[in-house]
């Protein structure tokens, strides 16, 4: 599990894999985050 800091684009807990980062970018582009 990864806890993500949206403001700074950094993991607060756990490690964000490349796949998770891509998913976050995708969600941000869609305006879901």
């Amino acid at each position, binding site marked *: *599990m990864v*806890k993500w*800091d949206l403001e*700074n684009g*950094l*993991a*607060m*807990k*756990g*490690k964000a894999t490349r796949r998770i980062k891509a998913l976050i970018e995708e969600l941000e582009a869609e305006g879901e985050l």
Partner: protein
Amino acid sequence: MRIEEAVANNRRKGFELKVGKEVLFFPYARLRVQPSAQNRVEEVRPDPELGYEGFTYSLEDGSEDTVHVDAVLEYNQDPDYMRELLLHNLTVEVRKQLEESELSRREVIRRLGTSPSQFYRLIDEANRTKSFGQLFDLLHILGCEVEVKVGGRGFRSGTRRTRRKAVGG
């Protein structure tokens, strides 16, 4: 932090959540999907898909939403959670200062008198076992002054850089 039990309390207009040994309250007013007298909470349960670090509730009309335990801890101003948040924000600030600094990482490590692995542990935002003192030492080496302000609720307590001093190479 796991949610052991979740109960809807319509009289108090909120959820009562057993987190560790404590029972924490989370009001309906903080929810994205809010229940009403005509559309009550039908079911609430700790969510296994979140590793029990959140709860999912559903309303009579079938709509549902999930709340992470962090939202509950933040609402209740949990001291451990608030400390973790402050530590994270301070680490983010340290990383920004490192990027801006003219000092090489090797030099910072030398001045800090520590090992590279300890240094990288310090600037890892996800690491929660470091101390505020170690981060203050690092900021000092980077030529920053840290001012700590403490106030009552409603006052945004925290640390901030006040000014940057010239640092010799």
